[in-house]
């Protein structure tokens, strides 16, 4: 192996190791887990003889002070980029130990109290983070009562729900009842958790303290992980307050100080809502983080970004291959691979990769709900059942498990039970968009459009990038004949997936329904452009023809009809309704224009379709033959 590559691997290994221990010390367990998983998924490579810089891990910040001198200057500079917080003093370290244990015991208020005057960035982070968590817990608890009463309602509904009408009405009511829950995540942040003695924590208060503490963004030089996490926290709070632009810049600052915090990248991603934003962000990231140490994390980020906003598939494959060569056994990467196959509707391959992942890391439940989706679509109920059993064996109280079980019930057409499990999943993780969307689908199955709309709405509220939810909203409103609304939602989904023919088609039909023929034609044309085999898409061709007919543009209409009919030849005799109808129309048209031979030819072509159509065609054929004679 190329020695520079080995050096790169070595660096990455060091950083990951370091980040895992530091992040877990600062209670960011998920990020820490990610780093550790990555570390263990790395490929084997020949260790260079001197492994001194692998010892960079410093469990105690105190010791790091002692060790700093032990390091050779160059090495520590290289691995950390020369950025370190000032080491804690021994008193601060004692305080840290106390706060840390209090945090672990989930006594957040106490933790924040003892750190009230802490100046060290890491302590400050712990303090504000525990304040935030305490607030979160309290607001959650105050909502909980509503939630439990809702679900108890639900179980009784499930039994009474055999009468479909009343059942769905009840579920709708129940959703309404839950309404405060929905408005809460957006609204609750203005509520402060009160201890009734005048002191209260609220998001703006924490933000204010943060903003007072953080230096202006221009001089981030020389700040260490504590500072980075403070920025990360600020981003989180801004995101809660729905100020994505501020959140993004906070996350970027956090990343630029300390890139090995995966949760931060993840949150950054969740701040984006439109594809054009993703492009801009990518450009900025490319410009800003040119140095070596950001590269590896940036590559990971690009993968995730791609999953959300389809971009350049070739680039993606290349990045993925590169990363897989470094981290051959990293489940996260494999999942990304599977997901991209899933998004490109290559279910077989996606399923295959998921099988591999399960072998590699059987107890990993993350993203397994996507696997269950795949199994659902591929209609493999037995495998789905096995997965459901297995997942509930691992942990019954994980959102992913509940989603899998819900999918299983849905596959068995037990939609009510399925909905119940989705609801459970949402109780466990309120930010699970796919659960909301899928629950919406279930309600559609139950013909309960209103409830479905509620579900889709929430999905969109949480994650406005979910085109399926937008599309679902459009469809649901279409069913309710509220085309103005459905048009808007189709536009949203189309903006997210502008290269998807279905979106344009839906948009076009919607325009058609509100009698906006021009726009409808435009949309159909666009859909036709995006179609893989534009000549064979008889549905679109026929609709286009009809629309042109409406505009009395007989020429275009005729040409589209003709196109529609000619697909007959290339489609190997597969005759759709549209072809029949087009033939009939052409026959009538030609007959009217006294082109009887043409008309006769078209009329003869009508061999399928309703009896009425065939009757009509025969009549025309007969008439034409008479005239021709």
């Amino acid at each position: 192996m190329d020695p520079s590559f080995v050096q790169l691997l070595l660096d990455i290994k060091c950083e990951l190791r370091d980040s895992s221990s530091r992040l877990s010390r600062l209670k960011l367990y998920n990020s820490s887990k990610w780093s550790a998983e990555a570390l263990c998924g790395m490929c084997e490579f020949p260790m260079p003889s001197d492994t001194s810089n692998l010892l960079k891990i410093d469990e105690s910040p105190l010791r790091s002070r002692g060790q700093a001198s032990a390091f050779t200057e160059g090495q520590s500079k290289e691995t950390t980029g020369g950025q370190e917080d000032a080491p804690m003093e021994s008193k601060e370290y004692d305080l840290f130990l106390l706060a840390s244990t209090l945090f672990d015991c989930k006594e957040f208020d106490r933790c924040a109290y003892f750190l009230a005057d802490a100046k060290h960035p890491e302590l400050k982070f712990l303090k504000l983070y525990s304040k935030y968590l305490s607030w979160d817990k309290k607001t959650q608890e105050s909502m909980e009562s509503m939630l439990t009463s809702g679900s108890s309602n639900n179980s009784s509904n499930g039994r009474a729900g055999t009468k479909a009408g009343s059942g769905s009405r009840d579920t709708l009511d129940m959703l309404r009842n839950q309404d405060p829950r929905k408005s809460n995540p957006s609204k609750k942040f203005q509520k402060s958790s009160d201890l009734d003695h005048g002191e209260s924590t609220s998001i703006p208060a924490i933000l204010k303290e943060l903003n007072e503490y953080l230096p202006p963004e221009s001089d981030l030089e020389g700040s260490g992980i504590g500072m980075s996490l403070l920025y990360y926290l600020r981003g989180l709070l801004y995101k809660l307050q729905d100020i994505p632009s501020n959140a993004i810049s906070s996350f970027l600052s956090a990343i630029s100080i300390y890139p090995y915090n995966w949760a931060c990248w993840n949150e950054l991603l969740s701040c984006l809502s439109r594809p054009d934003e993703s492009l801009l962000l990518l450009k900025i990231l490319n410009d800003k983080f040119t140095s070596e140490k950001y590269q590896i994390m940036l590559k990971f980020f690009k993968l995730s970004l791609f999953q959300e906003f389809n971009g350049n598939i070739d680039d993606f494959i290349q990045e993925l291959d590169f990363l897989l060569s470094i981290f051959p056994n990293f489940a996260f990467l494999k999942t990304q691979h599977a997901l991209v196959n899933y998004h490109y509707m290559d279910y077989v391959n996606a399923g295959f990769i998921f099988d591999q992942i399960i072998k590699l890391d059987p107890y990993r439940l993350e993203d397994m709900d996507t696997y269950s989706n795949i199994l659902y679509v591929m209609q493999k109920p037995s495998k789905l059942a096995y997965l459901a059993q297995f997942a509930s064996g691992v942990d019954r109280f994980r959102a992913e498990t509940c989603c899998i079980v819900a999918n299983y019930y849905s596959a068995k057409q037990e939609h009510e039970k399925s909905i119940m499990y989705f609801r459970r999943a949402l109780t466990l993780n309120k930010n699970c968009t796919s659960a909301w969307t899928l629950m919406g689908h279930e309600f559609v199955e139950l013909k309960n459009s209103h409830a479905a709309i509620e579900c889709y709405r929430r999905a969109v509220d949480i994650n406005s990038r979910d085109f399926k939810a937008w599309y679902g909203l459009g469809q649901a409103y279409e069913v309710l004949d509220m085309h103005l609304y459905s048009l808007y939602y189709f536009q949203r989904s189309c903006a997210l997936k502008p290269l998807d023919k279905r979106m344009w088609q839906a948009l076009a039909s919607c325009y058609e329904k509100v009698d906006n023929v021009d726009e409808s034609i435009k949309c159909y044309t666009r859909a036709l452009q995006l179609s893989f085999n534009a000549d064979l898409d008889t549905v679109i061709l026929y609709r286009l023809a009809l629309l042109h007919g409406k505009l009395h543009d007989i020429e275009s209409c005729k040409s589209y009809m003709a196109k529609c009919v000619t697909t007959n030849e290339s489609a190997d005799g597969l005759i759709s309704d549209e072809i029949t109808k087009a033939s009939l129309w052409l026959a009538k048209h030609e007959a009217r224009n006294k082109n009887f031979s043409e008309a006769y030819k078209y009329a003869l072509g009508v061999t399928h379709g309703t009896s009425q159509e065939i009757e009509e065609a025969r009549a025309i054929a007969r008439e034409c033959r008479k005239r021709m004679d």
Partner: protein
Amino acid sequence: MSRGNTPSQHNSTLAISPLVGSRSIQVPPSQQQPRSGIAQNTGTRHWSGSHRAAQTPYHSVTYSPLVQKIQSNASLATPAPAKDYNGGSTAGLLASMTKNGLFGPTVPSILRRVSAATGSKGSKNASGGLETEELLDENQASNTIDIAQLPAAEKLRLWRHDSLMQHQYRTAEYIGDKVYAMTGDPNDAFWLAQVYYNSGSYVRAVELLSHNNLDTSSVMCRYLMALCLLQLKKYEEALDIVGETNPFQDPLGNHVKNQDGGIKLESSMCYIRGKIFAALNNFDKAKESLKEALQVDVKNFEAFDELVSKNLLTPNEEWTFLATLDFSDLDDNEEFIRSLYTSRLSKYLNLDEVRKAQNFLIDEYKLHDNTDVIHSSVDTLFTQCKFSDCLKLCEEALEHDEFNFSILPTYISCLYELGGKNKLFLISHKLAENFPKHPITWFGVGAYYMCTNKISEARKYFSKASILDPTFSQAWIGFAHTYAVEGEHEQAISAYSTASRFFPGSHLPNLFLGMQYLLMGALPLAEEYFVLAYDVCPYDPLLLNEMGVLYFKKNDYVKAKRYLKKAWEAIKVLDSESKSWVSIHTNLAHSYRKLGENERAVKCFKLVLETAGKDTDTLCALGYVYLVMNRIGKAVDALHGSLALCPSNQTAHALLKQALDVNLSTVLDESHPLVVSSKIQEQGSVMSRKRAANKLDVHTMAKKLKQGQISSEDEGVDEDSMDLE
């Protein structure tokens, strides 16, 4: 003995100190001299005794304030006749001061003092001076013992005084009556009246004083009489006694320096005149009298306190008035007192000076723990609406002094502001246990009920507080608020207008009056009151906000904008986190909207949403502005948000319908956001196929993106890029 011997208006009561002082000024020297000598003697003896008494702590008279007074008088009031004792007596004064004498007399019981005395006798330590000590100690029980050369009357006077200082009023009355009967001296009459006053029998004091026509001859007696009448709430008679104007007023404005360091009687008379006028609801005259009291003698803190704490002066007046005061009487305490007074003034303006004064007090006099200095900072924070900081500071101050009545009202207001029900409950209970007759107690209880939204109870207790002290502004305003909360405008208005009559120096009642009229739609009246309030205090952002709203309602958007902007600047200076500032932003945004400055309106609305969280009406208005700007996507988003929070918002429904209609009729041409975004995506994938130089493409792409943004609806990204670059 002539009656003219009682002190003139330029003197303080120090001049008629119980025994010695008055004698020392008395004219006939032949009579006077020996007595004075005796007094001096006792003084010095005490002094010498107190030297020895350093070992035996139980010498009540030595430590009694009375004796200190004698001694201080000896040095201050009689400069000439007792020259030789002068040095000694000041030393005695110092000694008694250092001995921390005030606590002396209250501690020991009579018995223990006797035993101590006998003990010292037993140890044969007794010199002549010490003997006197003992005699004085036991003079209640044994006046049979002869006190040196003192005549009987003097002894009785001493007795009377000591019992007065020890609050044994019946003894004092009993003995005082006898002394007066024996001598018929007007001074004895005065002191007897003093005893009556202290024991609360004001009528008897008045009778005594008027019986002897003392009030006509002696300023001092007149003062006491007025005080009694004031206590008896006979305001008119009291005013007759003190006169409607200051009879001693010097037309030339000559300032007579006070000799004795006490408060000039003239000033006290002015003060009491002010009190009477205030009680008669004649606030202009009250204000003038109180001001005069201070001008005559700055040491009259009560007058100053009355002026400031009862809001008789507007902030501006306060500052200009303080600037006219002459502190030169105070010698080396001049700066000290000036700073103390400055720190009490209104915090709406000249904040720097207040801060300077505070710092001076803290640095020079180490008063950082002193409640009054903390009170000043508390007031500053409260005026700036920094309630949580204010609360913290209040709690610190209350740790030293749990029932400090100058801080408690602010503390209670803070708790109310922050919704600290629990603490309000605790503090009002504590207060009710300890001070059931104090207005602040019931103010606290009222605030608690207000906090828990029990309006009628709150009203009951606020009115109780204001009955106990009609000049307690917070209680009055709270009382009026209870009506305002329930939407009873008429009653609220009458309550507020009473408050505005009582507190001419505070802009708040007028502001609230204006708000009520604004709610009732009586715009001209509202404007009148706002202007009144504005005259008093043009710095309050709340007032500026209300004025903005008023002009907004009058469709005068330019003016509205101006006031709201002023308000905005004011709060920027204050930098506080109060929730009420959100409404300023909202109002400003609305006036921008009306003026067609859509971009600014959008910015303001966004700011509101960021600071205050989502609100259906704000989102609806934002949606409207976007709709006007023809940014349909954003408009629909905002309106959706509005409806999500409140599904029954009719305006939002109508606007959404309209927005969707516009959306429908928007032509899908090149500039339509959908088309733009799909092109960008297409380019992205085409570019990938080409695999050209990556960076260049990104640049052009970004450029395209931005061009797209102009026509489409981007802003979030735009801001990001600005943040980042």
